[in-house]
């Protein structure tokens, strides 16, 4: 029995099923758009965690928390003077992206100064610059859960407290993804038609205020079936737009161009916060660290001395209760008297 031995009725069903399952060009383009974004961040042959890693990580984290909780309890019940590290509660860092290192380091210096003032109890006095922190407007990689802090660590004769605060503001940055495809018996006609549509999309975006520099053709290719005399040209464009309203306007404008497929994505944390917003958050995180240190010291029966060090982490993104958010983290270490 070979491929054609199936009876004609079932063969028709086989054909109908193939036709029913055949994806449309828009579906292929949508998946392609998602894939394009991933290829840039996932190198071929890149190491990948096995699917069961979450269970192992959760188990290890639970075990670590139990052990550290025990250590903290022992430390608080009778901490001998002069001993090294007596108890540590390690914060699962509000880790996320190490992205935009240039922007992050640019923000670090004023951040540390601000934190010192807040930890010492003084209001922040740094003038607002109002400038956006430099950095690419790419979609951020959102890391772990935000629910990591505040935490307190006794470290020898010192006490380190970590506070966090979310960075308010920053307009969401979105991307309008557009795909254009044309098929015909003539390759050059297909290419010309796609180019015309690209020009129409650019015009439509320009009319709603999207600058030409924000629109990029990320992919253009032609392929053909010489025997069937069927040629296709395919292109995809991305336009980066800041602000929810502007994104909606741009998407609407693109969808009015005949023969294109478009969808948009946006992230509330894709835009870069201003230095003001970061400093405000650092002040709140530092104040939280100070409060935590004070109350923990009181509970442990010790008194806080001078501030020994302050470490302010640049903003990172993490998963908060209502979606991705950007947080800062400040760790202040006090001497114990």
């Amino acid at each position, binding site marked *: 029995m070979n491929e054609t031995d199936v009876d004609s009725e079932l063969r028709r*069903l086989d054909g*109908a099923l193939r036709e029913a399952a055949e994806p449309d060009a828009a579906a292929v383009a949508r998946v*392609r758009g998602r894939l394009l974004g991933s290829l840039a961040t996932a190198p071929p042959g890149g190491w990948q965690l096995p*699917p069961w890693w979450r269970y192992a990580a959760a188990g290890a984290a639970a075990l670590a928390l139990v052990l550290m909780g025990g250590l903290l309890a022992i430390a608080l019940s009778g901490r001998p003077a002069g001993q090294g590290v007596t108890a540590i509660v390690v914060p699962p860092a509000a880790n996320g992206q190490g992205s935009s290192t240039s922007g992050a380091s640019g923000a670090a210096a004023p951040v540390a100064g601000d934190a010192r003032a807040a930890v010492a109890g003084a209001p922040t006095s740094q003038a607002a610059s109002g400038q956006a922190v430099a950095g690419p407007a790419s979609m951020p990689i959102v890391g772990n859960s935000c629910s990591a802090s505040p935490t307190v660590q006794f470290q020898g004769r010192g006490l380190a407290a970590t506070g966090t605060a979310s960075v308010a503001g920053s307009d969401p940055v979105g991307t309008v993804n557009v795909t254009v495809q044309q098929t015909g018996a003539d390759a050059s006609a297909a290419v010309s038609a796609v180019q015309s549509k690209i020009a129409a999309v650019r015009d439509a975006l320009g009319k709603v205020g999207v600058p030409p520099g924000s629109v990029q053709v990320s992919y253009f290719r032609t392929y053909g079936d010489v025997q069937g005399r069927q040629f296709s040209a395919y292109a995809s464009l991305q336009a980066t737009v800041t602000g929810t309203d502007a994104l909606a306007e741009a998407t609407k404008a693109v969808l009015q161009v005949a023969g294109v497929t478009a969808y948009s994505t946006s992230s509330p944390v894709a835009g870069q916060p201003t230095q003001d917003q970061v400093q405000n958050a650092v002040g709140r995180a530092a104040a939280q660290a100070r409060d935590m240190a004070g109350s923990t010291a009181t509970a442990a029966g010790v008194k806080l001395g001078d501030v020994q060090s302050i470490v302010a982490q640049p903003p990172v993104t993490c998963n908060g209760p209502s979606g991705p958010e950007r947080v800062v983290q400040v760790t202040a270490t006090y001497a114990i008297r």
Partner: protein
Amino acid sequence: MSAATSPEEAFLELYDREAPAVLAYLRAAAGDDAEDLAADTFLRAWRQWPAYRASDRPIRHWLIRIARNLAIDRFRRRGRMAVLPLGRDPAAGDDVAAGVVDRIQLLAALETLAPEERELLAMRAAGLSFAEVGAHLGKTDAASRMAWHRAARRLQAHLER
């Protein structure tokens, strides 16, 4: 056809060639999850791309195997097969509406089959030969053909009800 000059371009050429078959398989086997699973399939394939290029395995067989494993993982987590309503491009005209309804009914009828029967038909929908279907399911060519007959008759009976 343009010559591929980088791994990304080569891989995207592979995507353009094979995505319709992989999506067809996933639309029939996984319904609404098809696009998610297709994106995951090609991303996983991209990560394994250097190793694959060094081998001589048939490309479609490799991709369908990845897609199948991902679909099985997802269904196992949910404890059930996915629900199926699926439509074409909503911008399509009324003249294709009747065809869309037929397709939806046909694909929805797959829901009534046992998972292994549905999967077998999905592989055929992706254009796999009986020998290739057999290779995926650990059956001989003849056995996969017989199983396909049974599944197709069951589907047909459901449609005639």
